[in-house]
């Protein structure tokens, strides 16, 4: 069952960047790709729970700021050590200048 929740405005995120969003006490990371598409994942690295929104977005990769662990934020796939567990992703839609996440 869908549970679309507003996360942020489309202009809140720079191109090729990420911001942290907290909804009901849970941290999410919301991304804007170089092609101006939006994506959302859990907010913390699966390695040692560091906040991903402080990391670096390059193309479709988010790099954790603590140990440089890398994920494809469009799929959640971990891209090698020290990442041993993929990142949970969430469906996203853009409506009326806002980014919505489906929290399911």
């Amino acid at each position: 069952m869908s549970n679309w929740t507003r996360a942020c405005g489309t202009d809140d995120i720079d191109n090729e960047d990420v911001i942290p969003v907290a909804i009901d006490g849970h941290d999410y990371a919301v991304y804007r790709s170089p092609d101006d598409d939006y994506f959302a994942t859990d907010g913390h690295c699966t390695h040692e729970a560091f906040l991903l929104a402080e990391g670096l977005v390059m193309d479709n990769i988010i790099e954790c700021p603590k140990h440089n662990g890398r994920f494809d934020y469009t799929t959640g796939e971990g891209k090698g050590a020290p990442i041993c567990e993929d990142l949970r992703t969430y469906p996203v839609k853009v409506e009326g200048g806002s980014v919505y996440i489906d929290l399911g």
Partner: protein
Amino acid sequence: MATRQRRDYGLLGEDGRSAVEAGLANADWYRVPVERKRLKELMRRHDTTAIIHTVIWLGLIAGLGTLTVVTWLSWWTLLIAVPYGMLWALGGDSRCHEAGHGTAFRTRWMNDVVFQIGCFMTLREPLVRRWDHTRHHTDTIIVGRDREIIEERPPRVVHFVLLWTGLPMVVPQVWGMLRHSVGHIAEDEKQLIPESEWPKMLRQARIILAVHAGTIAVAIALGTILPLMLTSFATLYGAWAIFWVGLTQHVGLAEDVTDFRLNSRTVHMNPWLRFCYWNMHYHLEHHMYPMVPFHALKELHEEVRDQCPPTYRSTFQVYRAEIIPALRRQLKDPEYYIHRPLPDAA
């Protein structure tokens, strides 16, 4: 004289358990705030600088290696061995470090290739190195959690003297490779490295040993140690340079704190050392923001310096003013360490 018992610096000891109970494992560390927009500029990756550095670095190794062959067994060989050893051992160590973080190049495979080259030059297993260094960044100088603590308190005199030969670094590494090649994984490695990585680790050890065995076979076939002098022996005779700069990073400073300004140093160095060391003399800044590539660390230093302790003028200053006096004092008083002054506003 203090009567503190020697602490257990191993990963399986009581101090490691105490660190976890005290909340020092995977703790929240203080970092001097840097505005997100500025930090993004500093973190920005590109390939050009690292490619230029790498070409010069490998070119110098090739050139000095050729000179070594040409002047072999003359006094010139000894003279050439100094810069060659520095480029091989310290250059390999720092390239392995920076490329291991994945920040030197924007292109991932370039980081991976240089990381593997650096590990080979320093006789390291890439996977072990990666997990050891990951822990070093999580729990920097936390006793019982960080295997990269070079010197303990009180200092081990024989170990400290031998450091300059490279043996305390190389012998355990080679022993580790041998163990892994026959499928043996130590208990502390099982704690450090996820089980899913073990098969890869064992495979890597066998490949690296085969390469080194090949070098030895070439030396035997040619009837000369020259191939070893240009490769694995260079790790040993260049190791002094790794430790000359490496000891300045943390030795003598506080243990078990969660503020890099208290346990890490930034030391100005001459251009040659900076080149060999790939700017890791900005070590405090590197620990605060490991995403910032080596070529942007000077700018990061300018951003945070007013919130950090004073920077040291040179490696000689650090040894003369702090490391040697601190180690001597710690022989008698293991509780002693250097308190770094923090700015009032910090």
